[in-house]
Each structure stands twice: as C-alpha cells, then as structure tokens.
C-alpha cells in the first residue's frame, strides 16, 4: 500500500452566484444613490417622527391589538379545531362552516361589518344572566362596539379560522398510536388531549403560528378604516396635514419591521423552549 500523502482540497468556485450578487449589490447602490441625489426623503423629518409620542402610541396600539387578536384567535382556533376532529357530524359541520365563512371573506369587510353594520342591525346590547336580575351589559351598541372592540372582534374571528386549520393539522400530526397508548394506561380523553396531543401539536403549530402573528400585526393596519388609532391611521393623519408622505410611510414601515422582528424573536424563543423530538 502506498504511503498516505497529505492532499489539499480545492472546491469549485461558484462563479454564477457571486456574479449575480455583485450585480444585485450594484443595482441597490445605484438605486439608493439616485434616491439621495433626488432628495426623495427628508431624513431629519423621518427621524423626528420616528419616536414622536403619537407614532409610538400608534405602534403600541397596533402591537396590543395584534397580540390580543392572536391570543383570542388561538382560543377560538383550538375550540373550532377540536369540534372538527370530535367525530360529531354536527360539530364538525359547524366548524367547517365557520372556517369557510371567516376565511372566505376579506378581513376588511369583516371589520367594517362589526363597526358599521352591527349597530344598524341591533341598536342596543342587552346581556343578562338568565333567571336572575343580574344585567351584565345594557347599552347602545355604538357605546359597546368601539373601534378597538370591532377591530379586535374582526381580526380575532377571521384569524380564528386560520388558526383552527393550523391547530387541526397539528392535532392530526400526533399519531394515533400515541393516543391509543395514552388511553391504554388509563388516561381520560381530556388527559390524552392535555398531556399527549396538545404539547406535541403545539410544537408543530409554533412556526405557522409565528407566521400568523406577523400577518396579524400587519393586518392591524386594516383597523385604520374604522378609525382605530393604530400606526397607519396616525401616520396617514399626520401626512394629510403636512404632506410628508414618504417620511411618514417610512416611519410606519419601520415600526412594522420592528414588530415583525419582535414576533420572529418570540417564535424562535418558543421553538427553543419546546424543541421538536
């Protein structure tokens, strides 16, 4: 046998990819320098609005609305998904109808419906505990359904349909064998769900859920149509009086990017906390 020789490994140079990178970088540079030369944006105005009180309130409202909507949507989604897999034909049909309806109509229409159409259909909201004198709510609909309430209801109900499908897929991904094994050691149906199905479905749901959270944070901008003071509404209100359109849209875009980064970080942290096995 020959004496082993030390050899150098030289990998192929991927010319095409590097060439393409160079072209794209050049194009981006030219675009930016053209923008600077044309003075498309006043950077000082951009920076002064970026951390202005109004804008920060708008960003905070968007974050609160989007996050609350995700939480409510997840609860709705879990219930609707469980109805779908319950094996009861009526519950399953109700669940499928809900998903079809709320996923099948534009979110904007749903928001407009809750805010504008509902009060014309029902003038008062009256809610009482049956067979007692306890009245929970008795008020004009317009007083109860504020822009925030309408936006939250609209986003959560629409998003609930998406979450239902995601959660259903997660539940179905937990194999039947494990459920049979859990029953066989004497777990009740609720315990099987609680200890076996949901923890594993949860791990499958996290990436898709993170995606939905990002979509939802951006969809809060739809609430501008019903007068909720979120980020887009506030920035458009400002530029309609001072005409700094580019600067203010850039301010809004900046904060949406920050929110998206936050949602991504939450998702990554959850994925680390619950690793896939």
């Amino acid at each position, binding site marked *: 046998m020959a004496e082993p020789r030390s050899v150098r490994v030289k990998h192929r140079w991927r010319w095409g990819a590097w060439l393409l990178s160079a072209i794209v970088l050049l194009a981006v540079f030219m675009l930016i320098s053209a923008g600077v030369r044309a003075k498309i944006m006043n950077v000082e105005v951009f920076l002064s609005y970026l951390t202005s009180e109004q804008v920060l309130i708008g960003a905070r409202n968007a974050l609160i609305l989007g996050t609350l909507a995700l939480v409510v949507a997840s609860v709705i989604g879990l219930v609707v998904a469980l109805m779908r897999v319950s094996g009861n034909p009526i519950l399953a049909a109700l669940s499928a109808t809900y998903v079809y309806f709320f996923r099948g109509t534009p979110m904007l229409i749903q928001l407009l419906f809750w805010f504008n159409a509902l009060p014309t259909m029902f003038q008062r909201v009256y809610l009482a505990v049956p067979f007692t004198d306890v009245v929970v709510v008795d008020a004009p609909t317009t007083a109860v359904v504020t822009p925030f309430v309408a936006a939250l209801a609209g986003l959560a109900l629409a998003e609930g349909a998406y979450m239902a499908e995601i959660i259903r897929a997660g539940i179905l991904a937990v*194999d039947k*064998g*494990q459920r*049979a*094994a*859990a*029953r*066989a*050691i*004497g*777990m*009740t*149906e609720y*315990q099987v769900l609680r*200890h*076996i199905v949901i*923890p*594993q479905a949860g*791990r499958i749901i996290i990436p898709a859920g993170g995606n939905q959270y990002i979509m939802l944070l951006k969809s809060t901008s739809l609430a501008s149509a019903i007068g909720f003071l979120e980020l887009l509404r506030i920035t458009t209100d400002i530029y309609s009086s001072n005409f700094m359109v580019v600067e203010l849209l850039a301010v809004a875009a900046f904060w949406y990017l920050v929110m998206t980064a936050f949602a991504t970080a939450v998702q990554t942290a959850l994925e680390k906390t*619950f690793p896939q*096995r």
Partner: protein
Amino acid sequence: MDTPVKAAAVVLDSVSKSYGSVEILKNVSVSIAPGEVVTLLGPSGAGKSTLLRCINHLETISAGRIYVHGQLIGYREVGDTLHEMSDKEISAQRRSIGMVFQSFNLFRHMTVLDNVMSGPVHVLRMSKPQAEALARELLAKVGLPDKANRYPSELSGGQQQRVAIARALALSPSVMLLDEPTSALDPELSQEVILTIRNLAEQGYTMLIATHEMAIAKEFADRVIFMVQGEVVEDVPARSFFSAPRHERSRQFVARHAG
C-alpha cells in the same frame, strides 16, 4: 355472574365485532387463567390486534361480553341491555390492563422517565418522587437504568419497546396485552425484548401475546390460540399445537413456521 368468569383473568364470551358489514371477530370465546401466558397466532388479518384492542375497549364490540378479573369491560348490564360506560369509568378499567404495541407508541415529547411516570402521576395521582422511584425501579427491571433522561428518538427499537413495557407495568396491571411486541425489530433486538417478556412470564404475569415470533409461543407460552378470519380455530396447550396441530390451517401454519 358465574364462578368461572370470576376466577379467570380474562374471559371473552361469544364476542363479535364488525366494521360496517364486515365481521372481524366471529363469536369468539376464550378464557385465560391468572398467571397464564397465552400466545395468539394466526395469519395477517385474522383479527389478533382487534381482539386485543377489544379487551381494553380501545375498540367497541358488536356482541358478547368481555370480563377482566370478573369485571365486565366497557359496559354496564341493566336488565337485558348493555350500556356503554362513561369515558371516566372506561379509563379506570384500563388501569389494570397493560398494553404493549407493535410500534412502541412512546410519548415522543417526554423523556424515558416521564413516559414511565406518566401513568402513575396522571392516572394514579401518585406523588412525583414516589412515581420517579417506581419508574427507575422498572427501568432497571427492563435493563435500561441509564436511559432515564433520554428521549424515545434517541433509543433503538428494542430499547423503546422495553420502555413501553415498563410504562405499562408502572400501573401494576393484572393483565398484559402485547400486540406483536417484536415485529418491528430485527432478530437481535427482538431477542432482548423476548427476554424481558420471558422474565414477566416467570414472575407470574398474566399475558396475552399476539405474535409472529415462534420463539415466544414455543419456549414459554402455556397455550396457543390460533385464529383465522376472526374465528378461533384452535385453543390448545402450546406443546400440542406445534407437535400435533389438529386443523388443516394450523398444520399449514406450523409447517411454514417450523424451524
């Protein structure tokens, strides 16, 4: 209820089971004494798995009655009608019936220790330290004392199956049902699982084992039940099944699995 039913560990009394119009179990009657090790043999599709799953009510039956230690499984008899029990009552009955599956079915998000502890903690409401001590003892018993903190995906098939056996034993079942416990394993790994099962047999566990593994049937089973197409064709001592099979189908089966 008559004495034979009370004295036996498992009784199937004229059990039938259909999926739609297809009859999977046809009027099956079987009785297993405490401490007996019975293998359930038969060609694929004979209904072995279905029979085992009926015994702990993972499947419902269409007719007949099943008793485990004298307790009617899955139903309450009122007058001449059987009423299916509630989820709670059925799960309480399952505690005393251990089951081991062909595909192990360990809980993949739990460590080996948590898998074995899951029954004692969630079902028996045992304290965590007590359950952990029990789980460690059982893991030692199946030869895996050092795998407690591993996840199922980090174990070999044979090791997973032994964990699954420990998980079932953790509820101190009075009967063990094993559905092809070695079919997913290559011969070498089968061997360690067979050894574990053999130990249980020697400790006096009542076991009903569906298997294609002749070693189990020949070496330590007391009895063989041979099924074909949902019917019990032969129910005899293990020795006589292999030395003098009575029916044509059993003769063919024994001839094919000889060696």
